[in-house]
C-alpha cells in the first residue's frame, strides 16, 4: 500500500478509536447507572411546565442567507489554498490573477452588505 493511502488508513483508524472510546464509556456506564424511564421523565424539558405543541414547529430560520454566502466563500477558499501554496512560483502573474478573483468576491460581499443581507431581519 502506498504511503498516501496508508495515512488515510490511519485517519480511518482514528475515527474508529473515537467511536470506540465513546462506546466503551457509555457501555461501562450502562452497568452502573439505573434505568427507570417514566412518562414524566422522558418529556421534553420546557422550564418545568408541560411542553406546548409540537417540538419541531415552524420557526423563522434567519440564517439561510448566511448559509448561502458560506458556500460561496468556502468554494473561494478551496481555490485560494493551492494558489497560496505555489505563490512563489507564480510570482506577479499569480498575484494579479488572485487579486482579480478576490476583488470579484469582495464585490459579492459588498453587494450582500448593500442589500442589507448581513443585517438582522
Amino acid at each position, binding site marked *: 500500500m502506498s504511503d498516501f493511502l*496508508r*495515512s488515510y488508513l*490511519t*485517519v480511518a*483508524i*482514528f*475515527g474508529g*478509536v*473515537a*467511536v470506540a*472510546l*465513546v*462506546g466503551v*464509556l*457509555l457501555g*461501562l*456506564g450502562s452497568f*452502573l*447507572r439505573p*434505568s427507570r*424511564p417514566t412518562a414524566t*421523565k*422522558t*418529556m*421534553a*424539558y*420546557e*422550564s418545568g411546565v408541560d*411542553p406546548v405543541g409540537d*417540538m*419541531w414547529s415552524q*420557526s423563522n430560520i*434567519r*440564517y439561510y442567507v*448566511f*448559509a448561502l*454566502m*458560506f458556500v460561496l*466563500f*468556502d468554494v473561494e*477558499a478551496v481555490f*485560494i*489554498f493551492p494558489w*497560496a*501554496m*505555489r*505563490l*512563489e512560483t507564480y*510570482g*506577479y502573474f*499569480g*498575484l494579479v490573477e*488572485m487579486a482579480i478573483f478576490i476583488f470579484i*468576491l*469582495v464585490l459579492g*460581499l459588498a453587494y450582500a*452588505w448593500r442589500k442589507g443581507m*448581513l*443585517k*438582522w431581519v
Partner: protein
Amino acid sequence: MISSLSTVLSPVLAVEIPYWGQTSLRVLGGLVAILLPAGGLVYVYLFKMMSFMQSRLGPMEAGPYGSLQLLAEVGKFLQKEDIVPAKADRLVFLGAPFVVLISTFLLLLAVPFGPDAWFVDLDTGVYFAMAVSSVSVIGILMAGWGSSSKYSLLGGIRAAGQLVAYELPMILAVLGVVIQAGTLNMNEIVFAQANGEIFGFGGIGNPYILTQFVGFAVFLIAIQAELTQPPFDMPVAESELVAGYMTEYSGLRFLLFFIGEFATAGVFSAIAAVLFLGGWYVPFLEPEHNLYNVLGPLVLMAKIFGVAGLIFWFRFTYPRFREDQLQRLAWKFLIPIALVNIVITGVLKVVF
C-alpha cells in the same frame, strides 16, 4: 547535557517499527494527547483560574487542591440515569456525541508533535484540519434536531449559524500562514518557522505570530466562536436556552459533550501553536535534532496551555454577544480583515 542525552536516546529513536505497531503506538499517543490537555484545561482553567478570577477557591476537597475533582465528576456522571426523551429521534439523538468526538479526534491527527512524532504526515495537513473541524457542526445540528425540544432546536440552529459564519475567518486567517510557508504540510510549516528569518535575523527562527499577528488574532477569535464559549456562547446561553443543543442530554452523554468541548479547545490551541507559535520548536536548538521527538511534545504541550490560557481568559472576562452582533462581527469585520491580510501577505511575499 543535551548532547549526552541525545546519544543515549538515539538508538531508541532510530528503531524501525512495522505499520501496525506504529499505528497502535499512535493511537495510544493520540488518546493521551486528547485526554491530558482536556483534563488539564478543565482543572487548571475552568476549576481554578475561573474561581480565582471570581474571588473563590473552587474545588478543594477531592485530592490536593481539588486536583482529582474531574475524576470524581466522571465517577458521578457514570452513575447518572441516561434519559432519552420519548419523542426524540432516537438514532440521531444517540449518534450526535459520536460525531462531535470523531471531529475532535480527526482534528488532532493534523498536529505534529516532533520531527518524526506525527500521527499522519499529510501533505494537505492544514486543509485536512479545516475540513474535519467543520464536521462537528453536523453533530451539533444532530443533537439540536434529534432532541425534540424547543430549546435544543433553537440552540442547534444558532450554533450552526455561528459555526458556519466563523469558519470562514478561521480558514482565511490560516491562508496567510500558508502563503508565508509555501506548504500545506503542518510539519513543514514548523520547519519553515524554525529555519525562517525576519529581516535577515534568523536567531530565533520566524514564528509566524510576528508577521501574521492579524491572522493570529482573527484565528483566536474564530476558534473561540467555534468552541461556542463566552463571549460567543449564544447557542448554549443558559439564561435563555437552558443549555441549548445539550438541554435533553443527561448523565454521561452530557459529560461527553462537555469534555469534548475542552478536548476541542486543546486541539485548536495545538493547531494555533503549530501555525503561529512554531509548534514543537524552541529557539537555539536546530530543528533536525533527534531530541525533539522527546522534547517536542512537552514544548507543544506548554504552548497549548499558553494559547488555551488566552482563550479561557477571554471566556471568563467578556459578557455575551447578542446574536446579531455576533454575525456582524464575523461578516463585516473578521472576513474583510482576513481578506486584506491575505492580499497584503501575498504582495509582500512576491515583492520581497
